[in-house]
């Protein structure tokens, strides 16, 4: 029996590929399968129709057991047109199933994809793959015969016809999908008619040979929903505001792929949370900091270029020792780079990219679901240590969906602000080096802070050399002490007698975990630690690392963490990295190191 299947959907960016993918994920998750996804869409809103540059892709992996990554090459590839086929044919396994929409391979489609008029793509495909041609257009129009809509509008339901076929092929309960579609389309029957036509087509006619019935894995108990990384961050912030019980200002400027967090929070309207679309990236971070000065928690988010613009604001947050959470949804850079693709190349900037001695905690989320917990930790550190915190996510996490068990509110971590009554000096430090947080409005608490160096304790302007030296070190020590809030160091994989340790961070988690599990199964003993805390590092990490002969650092950049660790530890590490804008696949990792 198959335990998992990888499916790739691709078509024109106007074909509703991402919507189709989202529906399948929810149906799969609700029917007890584990699922991971990977989106690949063009940076342009509507790139020229039918062209290779306008192709939008969505990959998902369905499994009977728990999985960690969306898989590498596809078992099934649904190609809506010739351009999609051209772009992704190499992603389909030899002997895999190509489900081709017939109309997408006609003369016009070939011309739009800039292919020769006599190219017979499907004949070529038959030499390598099993090919199932489906007249998606005719079936859709046939199903909508009675609907009074123009052909163009009817054709928009093509993706739902394909949803019907896939629902049947992978044995997902049609009741679940239909309930979903009724909720999404609110009584508009067009899409549901197309869906049913696809399902019936698959069931009654052609598709018997291609069915893959996946078992249900034994699922966790609880209430679930599917979330992507952007939704997880928004929910994590809502939870942080609740745990803090004070106003939260989420202030950001539109930028791909961080904007979805803004959209989510604006839609959700969680208690305590105010959402501001600021006039620019700098206003986003400085207004957030203003909210923190006023006794709330300022939060901002951005992607690469916006992180650069916020650097000065972070410096002020370091100097004023106010809480602030900055979520950086990394994308391919530098500059505008690859705005819809994923990368981990902002790490150096997050760790070091400020003027002056300006250390701050840097955390990284590993999956969409993990982003919820990591945002809560970021908010806790920001408030309890009175410091700005950077949380690194990336385009892959932001856009990939997975089932998520909704946590009980009682089980959420506490967030306890430092003392906030008048009577102490502005920069009086407690045992952990944390200054008080006295919000305007507090009787007798009037005080001034700012970007100028302050005197130890009082915070009054001081240009004294010894004082500056002392304050630089006090700020750094306070950030180092944030590690007290970390919890135990998590070791993902521990093999007997391993002399090799793999270190990775962020969204590489799924692929790396699958890779090390595969190696262990083949007798290559490799231990694996996935870093959530990039600064300060977990206090137990260095003693642990010292036990290994060999350390392999895997990341989606040109070795930024590897370089950083070599500098800190004065020991060599091996760097396994790539910067293609695409996440690692397990297959790829198997070849990249040994």
């Amino acid at each position, binding site marked *: 029996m198959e335990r998992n299947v990888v499916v790739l959907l691709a078509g024109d960016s106007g074909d509703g590929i991402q919507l189709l993918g989202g529906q399948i994920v929810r149906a799969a998750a609700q029917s007890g399968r584990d699922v991971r996804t990977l989106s690949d869409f063009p940076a342009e809103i509507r790139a020229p129709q039918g062209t290779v540059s306008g192709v939008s892709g969505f990959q998902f992996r369905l499994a009977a057991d728990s999985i960690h990554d969306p898989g590498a090459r596809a078992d099934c590839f649904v190609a809506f047109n010739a351009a999609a086929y051209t772009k992704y044919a190499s992603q389909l396994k030899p002997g895999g199933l190509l489900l081709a929409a017939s109309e997408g391979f006609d003369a016009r489609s070939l011309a739009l994809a800039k292919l020769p008029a006599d190219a017979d793509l499907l004949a070529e495909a038959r030499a390598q793959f099993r090919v199932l041609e489906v007249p998606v257009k005719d079936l859709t129009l046939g199903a909508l015969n009675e609907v009074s809509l123009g052909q163009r509008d009817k054709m928009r339901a093509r993706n739902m016809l394909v949803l019907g076929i896939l629902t049947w092929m992978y044995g997902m309960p049609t009741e679940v999908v239909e309930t979903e579609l009724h909720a999404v389309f609110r009584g508009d029957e067009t899409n549901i008619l197309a869906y049913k036509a696809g399902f019936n087509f698959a069931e009654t006619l052609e598709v018997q040979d291609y069915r893959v019935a996946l078992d249900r894995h034994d699922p966790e108990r609880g209430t679930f929903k599917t979330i992507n990384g952007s939704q997880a961050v928004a929910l994590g912030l809502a939870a942080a505001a609740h745990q803090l019980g004070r106003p939260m200002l989420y202030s950001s400027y539109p930028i791909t792929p961080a904007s979805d967090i803004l959209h989510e929070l604006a839609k959700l309207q969680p*208690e305590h949370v*105010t959402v501001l679309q600021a006039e620019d990236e700098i206003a986003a971070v400085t207004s957030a900091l*203003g909210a923190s000065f*006023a006794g709330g928690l300022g939060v901002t988010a951005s992607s690469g270029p916006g992180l650069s613009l916020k650097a000065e604001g972070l410096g002020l947050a370091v100097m004023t020792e106010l809480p602030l959470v900055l979520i950086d949804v990394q994308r391919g850079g530098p500059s505008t780079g690859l705005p819809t693709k994923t990368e981990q190349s902002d790490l150096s900037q997050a760790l070091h990219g400020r003027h002056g001695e300006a250390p701050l905690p840097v955390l990284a989320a590993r999956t969409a679901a993990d982003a919820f917990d990591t945002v809560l930790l970021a908010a806790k550190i920001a408030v309890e240590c009175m410091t700005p915190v950077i949380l690194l996510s990336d385009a892959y996490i932001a856009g990939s969906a997975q089932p998520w068990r909704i946590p009980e509110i009682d089980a959420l971590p506490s967030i306890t602000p430092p003392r906030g009554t008048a009577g102490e000096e502005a920069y009086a430090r407690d045992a952990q080096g944390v200054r008080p947080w006295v919000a*305007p409005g507090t009787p007798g608490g009037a005080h*001034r802070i*700012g970007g100028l160096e302050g005197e130890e304790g009082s915070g009054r302007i001081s240009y004294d050399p010894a004082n500056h030296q002392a304050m630089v070190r006090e700020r750094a020590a306070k950030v180092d002490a944030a590690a007290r809030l970390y919890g135990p160091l998590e070791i993902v994989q521990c093999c007997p007698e391993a002399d090799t340790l793999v270190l990775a961070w962020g969204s590489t988690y799924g692929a790396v975990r699958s890779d090390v599990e595969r190696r262990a199964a083949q007798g290559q003993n490799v231990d694996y630690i996935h870093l959530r805390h990039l600064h300060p590092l977990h206090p137990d990490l260095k003693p642990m690392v010292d036990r290994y002969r060999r350390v392999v650092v895997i990341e989606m950049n040109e070795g930024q963490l590897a370089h950083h660790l070599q500098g800190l530890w004065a020991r060599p590490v091996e760097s396994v990295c790539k910067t293609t804008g695409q996440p690692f696949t397990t297959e790829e990792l198997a070849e990249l190191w040994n």
Partner: protein
Amino acid sequence: MELTAKNFQSAEEVRWCPGCGDYSILKQFTEVLASTGADPDRTVVVSGIGCSSRLPYYVDSYGIHSLHGRAPAVATGIKLANPDLDVWIITGDGDALSIGGNHLIHALRRNLNVPILLFNNEIYGLTKGQFSPTSREGQVTKSTPRGSVDHPLNPLTLALGAGATWVARSMDRSPAHLRDLLAQSQAHQGSALLEIYQNCNVFHDGAFEAWTDKATQALHAVFLEAGKPIAWGGTEPTHALAWNAGQPEVRALSRDFSLADAWIHDPSDRLKAFALAELEGELRPFGLLYAAKRPVFAAGQPAGTRPLREVLHSGRTWTVE
């Protein structure tokens, strides 16, 4: 206990150059805080960077000396987190109009409920003497030894154009006038842009003498009063403005043209406020040019109210028993 100006003076040593116009502005500011019954526990003074932006350190209230140009953004966050605070923005011509131009116009268009005190000295003082966005064409500075070629910005037309709901001008050398406008700016519901002519006696001394010096003020400075003719020239005015075919026209008062014929100042008239703001030559207006009512920003931007449980469970969920 009634507070006096002294109660609003902090212990920090004031470090502006001797003779700087900022001293007078600070003095009038603390006096107005006292006279208007400001609560030091709820007063927040926010500034950017520059000579003027040092002011919060010298006021015994809450204060934050932030980043160059960013005070309006910082103040926006403060007001959103706690709309009940009395927030003031202190800025200068370089801070507000050059590096912080974007934040200024957006604070104004949003009608953030904050007075913005723009100390205009037509020069960069703290960086020691470069031309600023309000420096005049031909002005010789350290960075323009052959004279500035940039056309200056007019803070008043900029504010009006950005949708400000309260626009006025005053000067460091007229304490009573300045106190009056400071109090009015604080009372206004919405963003109040008060341009204050401020003499930099080190790098651009005497820039505003024509309007601030007792000997010449009557000839060049027009003090506006709502409902009164727009006239100047001394205790007994000698000249007035007429509104002639959509243009201001300078008229000598005579038997043919009396105060009864003059343009009566109406601060609710935006078009005429533009006309007054555009008096950029020898004759310049002081006082309140324009005031309007519009909902303030924070009121339209309340925090969410949905309980966390509802938020976490929003959207399609399913339960595995």
